[in-house]
């Protein structure tokens, strides 16, 4: 066997499958119960200082914005973050909630880099380990599968590997060198979906990103949804359930929960709002002013939506692409 290489960074949570087994066995159950609660209750009940949290999807698309705003509102100071996000995770950084990031990408794609990440990383306010999009998703997949690692070709030969927490291994069948990606269980996963019933059975339209993986890798899972639908509707189309109830700890009804991002078939993104936000976050003062007006100002998602206004929501609903 060749020399085993190790990434420099420590893992935030152990990939040990036995520990997770015991935890899940003790703390989760398949009993069906009403899990509907507000953003405030969900975040207060399931997030603790020191938690490792992760959000899904990415790029102002089906992002759990109402839940992320609530995390900022509750003033957490010491969270760790799986860093595949844009505005949702920027809020957490800007709100000084985050100390450590397992990062793959934090930027604005066509709109450029993240000034909020720049300030936090360059000042040393957050420490960062490096991963790729696929390797982060595969790490969640390993946790979802109940195994401590998954082999891959990604990150081989690069500094991305060096600043990760992965290791190299030799394939027992072919002798090929591979990267062993450690399973990434997360303390709290946060996912926004199109529809859920009161137990937490979820349906998503369009691409499902890494919702499947994150839901199954999460010790606690908070769902927000555009609509709460009758459980009979779920049972009529069991093949539409991507996240079954027993993974879910809280169901939050959050219409326009992805605003200013988009929700496919439901509403378009608010391009102007996003553009203004990005301009504003060029300075720290601007970023804090945005937070005050849009995040900590409103005391709930309902108040936030009042600030957005019914007219704007109507406009975005009408602008959406059909099937």
């Amino acid at each position, binding site marked *: 066997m060749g020399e085993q290489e190790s990434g420099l960074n420590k893992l935030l949570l152990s990939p040990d499958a036995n520990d997770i087994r015991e935890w899940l066995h003790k703390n989760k159950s398949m009993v069906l119960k009403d899990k509907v609660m507000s953003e405030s209750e969900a975040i207060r009940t399931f997030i603790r200082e020191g938690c490792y949290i992760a959000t899904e*999807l*990415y*790029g*102002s*698309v*089906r992002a759990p914005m109402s839940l992320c705003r609530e995390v900022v509102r509750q003033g957490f100071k010491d969270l760790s973050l799986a860093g595949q996000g*844009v505005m949702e995770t920027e809020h957490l950084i800007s709100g000084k909630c985050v100390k450590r990031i397992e990062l*793959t*990408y*934090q*930027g604005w*794609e*066509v709109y450029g*880099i*993240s000034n909020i*990440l*720049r300030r*936090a*990383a*360059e000042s*040393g306010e957050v*420490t*960062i380990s*490096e*991963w*790729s*999009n*696929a*390797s982060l*998703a*595969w790490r969640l*997949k390993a946790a979802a599968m109940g195994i401590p690692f998954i082999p*891959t*070709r*990604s*990150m*081989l*030969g*690069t*500094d*991305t590997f060096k*600043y990760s927490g992965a290791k*190299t291994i030799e394939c027992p069948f072919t002798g*090929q*060198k591979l*990267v062993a990606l450690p399973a990434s269980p997360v303390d709290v996963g946060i996912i926004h979906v199109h529809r859920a019933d009161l137990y937490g059975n979820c349906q998503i339209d*369009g*691409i*499902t*990103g*890494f*919702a*499947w*993986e994150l839901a199954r890798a999460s010790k606690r899972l908070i769902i927000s949804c555009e609509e709460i639908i009758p459980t009979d509707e779920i049972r009529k189309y069991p093949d539409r359930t991507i996240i079954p109830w027993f993974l879910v700890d809280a169901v939050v009804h959050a219409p326009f929960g992805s605003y200013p991002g*988009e929700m*496919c*078939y439901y509403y378009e993104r608010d*391009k102007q709002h996003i553009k203004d936000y990005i301009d504003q976050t060029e300075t720290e003062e601007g970023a804090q002013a945005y937070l005050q007006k849009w995040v900590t100002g409103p005391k709930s998602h309902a108040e936030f939506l009042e600030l957005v206004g019914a007219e704007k929501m109507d406009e975005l609903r009408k602008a*959406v*692409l059909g099937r």
Partner: protein
Amino acid sequence: MEYKSNELLICIASRQMEDGTSAFIGTGIPMLAAALAKRMHAPNLIPLFEFGGVGGTLEVLPLGVGDSKTFYKAWAALVICDLMETAQRGMVDYGFLGGAQIDMYGNLNSTVIGPQPKPKVRLPGSGGANDIGSSCWKTIAVMQHTARRFMPKVDFVTTAGYLTGPGAREAAGLAPNSGPYRVVSNLALMGYDEETKRMKLLATNPGVTVQQVVENTGFELIIPDKVGINEPPSDKELTLLRNEIDPGRLYI
């Protein structure tokens, strides 16, 4: 017709796309280039978006790789793992990449300027770039061409090019016969020398001299005896870009 620098970049990137192949498309220039290629010479180009969109029409431009326009009228709306695994299995021909720095072996940096733990400039990070660079057969980088970006040693290898030269990808465990293929810049089109795996000039952009390219490259670029000259954007290309592909001028 007059054209802007990014219109030229889009057209030249577009011409690298082969009909009947598949390509991972990132936001911005590659998206427009793919939309243009599909309307010009490559109607059977299959655009893949890493979060799951497969074969969308690009009738409406997406604003990101997870955007609903990436799967509008697509044949499949899948998931990130599936698409990345499809590439890892060897079913994706091309991948488009960007970055702040590139070296002569095509290694790309989109992570940090300066040391990673305390960077001078924090960049977005790998995103899907490392995966695409590891698994697609051929990658095409789209870059601004300056000597500070085309440099001898990138501050951080986010995405593997040919690493330290011939055989290095394979030694690192990456698949044989994969790696960097083209670099499209505002000054020129580059490829790689088969033997040394070093970047070489293929063609200069209209109005750009070989000397200018050399001056704006911080490492020794291979200059073959014959260097081509890229055609400027045609009227047809420009009309499609401006009237059909990006009428709202989101990108151009």
